[in-house]
């Protein structure tokens, strides 16, 4: 299964919970502030390892992540 996620950087509050729980460590804090003044999470799937497990989305307090799988 291949997957990808989309993080809404304006909803993200940079809590880093998704970073902590991603089994493949594909999420890291961005270094650009969003409009609310947070450093949001950013998805990096260069390795192509994302399986669309949706763990990140299930733990995101701000429903900031959409997950695609196929």
């Amino acid at each position: 299964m291949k997957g990808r996620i989309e993080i809404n950087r304006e909803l993200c509050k940079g809590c880093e919970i998704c970073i902590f729980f991603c089994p493949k460590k594909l999420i890291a804090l961005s270094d650009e502030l969003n409009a609310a003044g947070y450093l949001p999470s950013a998805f990096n799937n260069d390795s192509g390892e994302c399986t669309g497990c949706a763990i990140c989305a299930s733990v995101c307090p701000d429903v900031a992540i959409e997950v695609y799988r196929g």
Partner: protein
Amino acid sequence: MKKVFSHPKSLKKAVFHYCPGCGHSIIHRITCEVIDELGIQERVIGVPPPGCSVFAYYYFDVDMVESAHGRGAAVATGIKRAFPESIVFTYQGDGDLAAIGTTETLHAANRGENITAIFINNAVYGMTGGQMAPTTMLGMKTTTSPFGRDGKFEGHPIKMSEILAQVQGSCYVERCAVNSPANIKKTKKAIKKAFQNQIDGKGYSLVEILSPCPTNWKMSPVKSWQWVDDVMAKEFPLGLIKDTTGKKRAD
């Protein structure tokens, strides 16, 4: 690729005002997922408390009515008695349900009011700045227990779930947490059962949810999620406390 995770229908598309890492928004989301899955959005009336979740009606796309501090169980009783076809839930913090609202909570459960209570336990009074709550643990420093909670002066943390399990009118009591993917899944199942019990007319259901409060615990969100496991769950054990419904948790 197919979208496999999206925003629940009964959750309004509003930016949450909650702190980064707060458990409230997770619980709002999974409760809305349950409301969607059970198809009850049009029947639900929610009663949020004063507290961080006072604006819950900005998020839950269901009829909601504000309650005075602690009185949610009484308000819910009034609604449910007046309109039994509704699905009424209270959403209460630990101060609301276990301090000022203890009497109303206990007696709604004792009368077996056919309502669903979602009890958010973060061991402090959040909105007012981190004061000691009935569920604050021994040794925990809060703004009104600055020397650390001491049983001699401040009493001990109260286990509301165990207390409510004692009264005959409560049919289902479970304690959960929302600090990991596995726990979030379990909590959602518990919430679903608590609503299903009401649909089935079984009596009072309570789901106590240990919820991280990074701001008042003075920790990073990740640390606060770990603290729920490392410290809170040792004082407030997770798991099923009472189930007289004869039905397993919805899977």
